[in-house]
C-alpha cells in the first residue's frame, strides 16, 4: 500500500502535472474555430490527463454545440410517440439516472438494464454496461432506435422528424453548416455530455490534502477500500485516473441470480452476429441474452456474464445498483461483495469473501457517500437517509458465508494492526 507521508510534495507534483497537462490540452485546441473548448479550469478531482485522452482532438465541445446537445437531450420529441427523451432515464437533477432498477421506455416497456449516469461518462473507454458502443456518439444513436426505449424505426425517421422542427433546422445549420443528419444529432448530444464531468467531492478535497474533509468513518472506509475490501483492483483510483473504474468487464455474479448461463451462451453463440451493433443492442435491452453481458460483444468464453466496472463517483445518488438495478442500497452492494459475490462458473477469480464486520461495512458506505459532487450534496443526504432507513432489509446478506463459517468462498488475511494506521496504508494519497 502506498504510504504518502505528507500532502505537500505530492500535491505539488500533482499540480505541476495538472498544469502541464492542461497546457497541452490548451495547445491542442488553439486551432478550434469556435470558443476555446477545454475548460479553463477543471474542477478539483477531474483529471486533465484523462480529459485529454478522452476528448479526441476536434471533438472538444464548443458551447454552441453543447447547448444544442442539451436541448436535444431534453427533447421528448426524439422518441417515436413524443413521450421519452434522453433525460427521461437520465434526469439531470437526479444524478442523470432515473432511480429505477431497469429503464422504462415508450409505452411503458421495461428494458433489461439499469440506466448508467451521464456524469463522467465521457471518461469511459466504451459506453453501455457491456461496452458495445465505442464512443459517446455511437452510444447516443442506439436508444433512440431501440424499440423498447425511444422506438424510432430508423435514423431517417429521426432526421425527417427533426428537420420538420424549424428551431432545429436553423441551429444545426449554424453549428454544423449543413442540413442536419443523424450523425450530427449524435455529435451534439455527445458534445453536451462532454460538459458533464463531475468531481468536487469531499473525497477530492481529502485526497488533495484536507484531512478533515471526510470524517473518521469515511477515512477508515477508504483504507478498507484499498485493503481488506479488495476494491481498488477494479474500482481503481489514482489522481491521473480518478473515476474509480478500470473500464474492464468482470463477472461478479449478479447475472447468476437468474440464469442458466451455459444453454444461454450456446444459444447466443448461434444468434449473435459479431459487429452488428444494432442487433447486440436489441438483444441486450430486450431479451434474456442481456445477462450474458460482455459475451454478446466479444464472444469470449471468459466474458460470459461480465459487465463493465462503473464509476463510483456520485454513487450515493445513482442507485439502484448493478447492471440490472437488482441491488437497492449501498449496504446491499456491500453484502454482495462481502460474501464473495454469487458463485457461478464464470465468476471473476478475484471475487472472494471479505469478512467485513457491520461497522466496517458502515465505514465503507460512508466512504462511498463521500464521493458525491457538491452540487448533489443535498440530494445525497436525502438518498443516504432513505437507504439507511432500509438497513434492516438486507436480502443479499449472508454473514455465515462472509465470515467463512459456511462454504468456501475465499480466504482472508489477518486483520492489520489498527492501532498504528501507518501499518495499514491509511495514508494512501493521490498518485
Amino acid at each position, binding site marked *: 500500500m502506498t504510504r504518502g507521508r505528507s500532502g505537500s510534495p505530492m500535491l505539488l507534483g500533482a499540480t505541476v502535472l495538472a498544469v502541464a497537462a492542461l497546457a497541452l490540452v490548451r495547445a491542442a485546441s488553439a486551432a478550434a474555430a469556435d470558443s476555446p473548448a477545454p475548460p479553463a479550469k477543471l474542477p478539483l478531482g477531474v483529471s486533465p490527463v484523462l480529459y485529454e485522452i478522452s476528448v479526441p482532438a476536434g471533438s472538444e465541445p464548443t458551447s454552441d454545440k453543447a447547448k444544442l446537445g442539451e436541448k436535444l437531450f431534453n427533447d421528448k420529441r426524439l422518441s417515436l410517440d413524443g413521450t421519452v427523451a434522453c433525460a427521461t432515464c437520465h434526469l439531470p437533477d437526479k444524478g442523470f439516472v432515473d432511480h429505477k432498477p431497469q429503464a422504462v421506455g415508450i409505452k411503458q416497456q421495461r428494458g433489461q438494464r439499469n440506466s448508467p449516469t451521464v456524469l463522467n461518462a465521457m471518461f469511459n473507454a466504451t459506453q453501455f454496461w457491456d461496452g458495445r458502443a465505442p464512443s459517446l456518439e455511437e452510444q447516443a444513436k442506439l436508444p433512440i432506435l431501440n424499440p423498447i426505449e425511444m422506438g424510432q424505426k430508423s435514423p431517417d425517421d429521426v432526421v425527417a422528424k427533426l428537420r420538420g422542427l424549424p428551431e432545429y433546422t436553423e441551429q444545426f445549420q449554424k453549428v454544423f453548416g449543413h442540413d442536419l443528419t443523424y450523425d450530427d444529432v449524435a455529435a451534439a448530444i455527445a458534445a453536451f455530455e462532454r460538459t458533464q464531468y463531475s468531481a468536487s467531492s469531499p473525497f477530492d478535497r481529502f485526497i488533495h490534502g484536507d484531512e478533515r474533509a471526510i470524517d473518521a468513518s469515511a477515512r477508515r472506509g477508504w483504507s478498507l477500500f484499498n485493503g481488506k475490501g479488495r476494491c481498488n483492483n477494479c474500482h481503481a483510483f489514482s489522481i491521473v485516473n480518478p473515476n474509480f473504474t478500470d473500464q474492464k468487464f468482470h463477472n461478479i455474479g449478479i447475472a447468476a441470480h437468474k440464469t442458466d448461463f451455459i*444453454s444461454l451462451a450456446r444459444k447466443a*453463440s448461434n444468434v449473435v452476429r459479431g459487429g452488428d451493433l444494432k442487433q447486440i443492442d436489441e438483444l441486450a435491452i430486450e431479451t434474456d441474452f442481456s445477462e450474458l453481458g460482455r459475451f454478446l460483444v466479444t464472444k469470449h468464453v471468459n466474458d460470459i456474464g461480465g459487465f463493465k466496472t462503473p464509476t463510483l463517483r456520485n454513487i450515493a445518488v445513482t442507485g439502484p445498483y448493478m447492471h440490472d438495478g437488482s441491488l437497492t442500497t449501498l449496504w446491499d452492494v456491500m453484502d454482495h461483495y462481502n460474501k464473495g459475490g454469487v*458463485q457461478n462458473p464464470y465468476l471473476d477469480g478475484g471475487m472472494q469473501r471479505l469478512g467485513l464486520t457491520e461497522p466496517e461495512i458502515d465505514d465503507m458506505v460512508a466512504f462511498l457517500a463521500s464521493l458525491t459532487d457538491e452540487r448533489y450534496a443535498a440530494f445525497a443526504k436525502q438518498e443516504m437517509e432513505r437507504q439507511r432507513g432500509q438497513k434492516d432489509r438486507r436480502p443479499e446478506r449472508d454473514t455465515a458465508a462472509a465470515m467463512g463459517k459456511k462454504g468456501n468462498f475465499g480466504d482472508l488475511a489477518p486483520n492489520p494492526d489498527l492501532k498504528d494506521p501507518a501499518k495499514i496504508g491509511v495514508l494512501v494519497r493521490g498518485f
Partner: protein
Amino acid sequence: MGVKSIETRHHEERDAFFAGLRRLSRRSFVKLAGISAGAALARGVVWPHGFQLVEVAGADVGGAEPGGKGRPSFTFAYISDTHLYPRKLNDRFVRAILKAVDDVNSLDPQPDFVFFGGDLAQLGQTDELDLGNEILKTIKAPVKMMVGEHDWFFDMGEHWRGLFGPPQYSFDHKGVHFVTIMSVQEKDFWTARGMTPMQRMLTVAGLDNGLQSRFEVGEEGRRWLEDDLKKVDPKTPVVVFSHSPLYKYYRAWNFWTEDADEVQAILKRFDTVTVIHGHTHQLLTNHIGNISFHGMLSTAWPWPYAPEGLPKLTVQMNRADPFNQFDGCGDGTFGVSEGGLVDALYNLWDRNPVTVRASYVTSNGAKDAPPATKLASY
C-alpha cells in the same frame, strides 16, 4: 430474488459437501457422498460449465483438423498438482481442487477416465492425502492416479501406496497403451545430512533450494518400463504419464529428469509416443525425436517460465495475476485421435481455453499454432 438459479443451488450443495469435509471421518463422508457433485448430477441437474462452451467456441479436441472438423476417438481429462494442505490451514487449495472436480464432472460427454497428475498433498501428510482421496472419490469417471514428489518424500510413499497402489502400472485402452511411471525418484541426499522425514519433505517441497537430488526414473524404474513395453508393438500408440517432464528443461528447479535420455531411448522404437507430465504448473509443449510432450496445469498455483531451457515449441501462457487465485491454474482434457495422436486442451481458469494440437507438435510448429501470449515471461 426469490428464485434460485441452477448455479446457486449447485453451490449450496457444494457448500454442504464442503462443510462435511471439516469433519473428515470415513463414516460422515460416506453420508456426504450422497450429496456430492456426482450424485447430484445423477439426479438430472445439469451443471453449467465453461468447459462445455469449448464446442461452441469451435475449439475441438483430438480432431483430425482444427475448427472442430474431426471428433476425437476418445478423451480423458486431468486434474494435477493440487498440493493440498489440511483444510484448517489452507482452504484455498481445497477450493481449487473442488473447482476442478466440478469441471470434470460437468463435461458432456464424460471423458473415458480422469487422470490425476501427482502432488495431491503438499507435504505428504496422511491427512492431506486422505483429504485429497476423499475429494477425488466424487469424480464420476474412473480415476487413474500418479504420484508426485510432494506425495512421496515424507514417508517414501508408504501412505500413497496404501491408498492408491503401486506408483507404476500400465493399461490398454481403445488401442492405446498407457503407462504410468514413477519419475521423481531421488538419490539419497538426506541420510548424510541427518534429516528427519519432515526436513526431507520440506527440502523436496522447495523448488529452488538446490539441495535435493535431481529427479530420475532410476535404474529399477527403467527396467520396469522396458519390461512393460516388451510386449507392445511399435505401431501401437503409447502414452506415458510421468510427473517430471522426462526431458531436461531447467535443472535448478528440477524441471528435469536426470536419466531422460535413457528413458527416451527406451521409447524410441515406437511410432507414436506422447508424454504427459505434471510438476511444471504451466502450459508447456515439446517435441524430441518421436516423442511429443505436454505439461499439465496445476490447480493450486502457476510457476513462471524458467530463465532458460524453455522448449522452442512452447507458446507461453500469459503471466498470472496474483489478485485472482485461479489465474494461471486450471485443468484440462486430452483428445486422442484414431492414430493415437494427442491434442491437449488447457482449461485455463478465468481465461479462454487454449488447445495445443498434435499437428502443431508433430509439424514442429509449422501449423496450427496456439494463440500467442500477450505478456511473456522475462
